[in-house]
């Protein structure tokens, strides 16, 4: 891992990440990114409903989307793909997502220390200023930081 690698690119990585596993099963899509944030989209899916009698997306997939967007925001901010583990993730639900709407999660990595990364974000279906949920999370670096190698 000492060879310099190109900076982490969320758009390119998404093609790989969302092909398999939990993110692939949910059908996550890359939406947009900036220097310290990433937006991912979860298209509407009938089989992700949280209740029998209401056409409302379950909250679980929103957590998954936030978790994934957070990791990618951290890698985008750090410009490296160092494995991270979620330590603590909090989601506050403001309102149910609209029926048949895709949900977009925007996670921003607002602070990075040598071993921790702090993220915050929102999930929304229509406008970013009318969120479905707010999120705050702390992640730990689990891969070796090259600067610590003896």
């Amino acid at each position: 891992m000492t060879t310099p690698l190109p900076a982490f690119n969320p758009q390119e990585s998404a093609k790989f990440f969302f092909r398999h596993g939990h993110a692939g099963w949910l059908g996550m899509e890359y939406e947009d990114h900036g220097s310290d944030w990433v937006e991912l989209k979860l298209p509407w899916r009938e089989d992700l409903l949280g209740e029998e009698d209401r056409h409302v997306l379950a909250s679980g997939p929103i957590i998954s989307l936030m978790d994934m967007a957070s990791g990618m925001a951290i890698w985008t901010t750090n410009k490296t793909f160092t494995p991270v583990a979620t330590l603590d993730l909090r989601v506050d639900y403001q309102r149910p997502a609209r029926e048949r709407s895709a949900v977009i999660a925007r996670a921003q990595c607002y602070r990075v220390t040598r071993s921790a990364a702090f993220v915050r974000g929102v999930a929304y279906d229509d406008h970013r200023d009318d969120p479905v949920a707010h999120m705050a999370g702390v992640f730990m670096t689990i891969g070796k930081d090259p600067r610590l190698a003896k």
Partner: protein
Amino acid sequence: MPNDHDTAQKGAGQLPIYARSLGIKLHEWEDNIPVLQVGFGPFVEGRPGALHGGATSGLLENAGYAALRARLQEEGRDPQLKPINITVQFLSAGKQKPTYAKGRITRLGRRNANVSVEAWQDERDRPIATAVMNILMADRAK
């Protein structure tokens, strides 16, 4: 007083579509609280060989709702449950094996319930993740 079999049948039937899609199942009943289980597979995989944090959260959340529904059923209540928030603590990586989760009602009020949930794999006393949830209980629209 419904017997365990009846309660279990109803409880299992109440797992939401999302939970069933993810492969979450009722594992067993313990002290009138359902223990949910999810097997390892591509649907729940995050980093190669590890459980995705979102899948773990989904299991915890469903176990929390299941515990609350079971208790409400005992009390003859059937409100609509709405999530207020959830805080998940990830304690260790979930491995390629079944994961279980069970909730505990910390406080049951008239409008709000506070539920703690633990998820574990091999050893019950070494949870891989825990969660605290606040759930709003609203009267169903007639």
